[in-house]
């Protein structure tokens, strides 16, 4: 049997499935404001979806994102945030932060973006590792039982630097 025309090569996308890509991302979450909690979560989620390993390190104000008593109640304040285009004199008024927080939460919910605790669940389900900063835990007198259940451990800054050898690093 011979064929007269050469078979056309099938175009197959490269998903890097044969070899481990080895790409790793480490995100340091240092802010506890609602609007600053999301960038790390969204980029981390995107990385996981691309087969990139992810370590998140929660430190200073970012510790609120994984503290059980606070993670459900992060706030967005327009004070000092010129990007809200709100007159500067209005932003510190009573009720403005609550209003802005409510409005941001609604915009995110409308786009099917989960709230912070649910987002952490999503990242865990996708294979993320979550690390709590030792110094932040000590400063706030918090122990593992005070933290989100998916936290993999309370570690020092040196531990984090050591374990993210070769990772790309993002500070938020």
């Amino acid at each position, binding site marked *: 049997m011979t064929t007269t025309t050469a078979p056309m090569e099938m175009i197959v*996308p490269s998903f890097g499935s044969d070899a481990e890509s080895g790409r790793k991302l480490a995100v340091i979450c240092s802010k506890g404001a609602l609007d600053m909690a999301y960038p790390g979560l969204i980029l981390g989620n995107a990385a996981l979806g691309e087969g990139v390993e992810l370590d998140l390190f929660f430190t200073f104000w970012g510790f609120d994102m994984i503290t059980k008593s606070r993670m459900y109640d992060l706030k967005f304040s327009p004070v000092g945030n010129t990007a809200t285009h709100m007159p500067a004199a209005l932003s510190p008024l009573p009720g403005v932060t609550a209003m802005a927080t409510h409005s941001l939460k609604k915009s995110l919910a409308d786009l099917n973006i989960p709230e912070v605790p649910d987002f952490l669940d999503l990242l865990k389900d996708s294979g993320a590792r979550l690390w709590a900063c030792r110094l932040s835990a000590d400063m706030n007198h918090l122990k593992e039982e005070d933290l989100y259940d998916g936290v993999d451990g309370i570690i020092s800054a040196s531990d984090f630097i050591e374990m993210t050898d070769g990772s790309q690093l993002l500070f938020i």
Partner: protein
Amino acid sequence: MPTTIIEGHELSVDDEGFLTEYDQWDPQIAEALAQAIDVPLTDEHWKVINFLREDFKAHGATPTLRRVSTEGGVDTKTLFALFPKKPAKKMSYIAGLPKPAGCV
């Protein structure tokens, strides 16, 4: 626009090999696409693929992983197990759809 031969059909694809014509896809082609990227299809895979096809038809966009878990009823962990490493791209490739455009 390039074309490629799959299961004896000449199909329109983009530069990466994703099908570009919704109606050129059928389940046999899905099997061939899945085989090409080493994802043997099970009933669970088909549940995801069928949801993707229906949701795309209804809304004009490939659902994101988040949408497949909240609306399609297949949780995130399972999606990563079914379509290892790059679930969003692999599931849409097999379903003959573009990659999801949404961020989450």
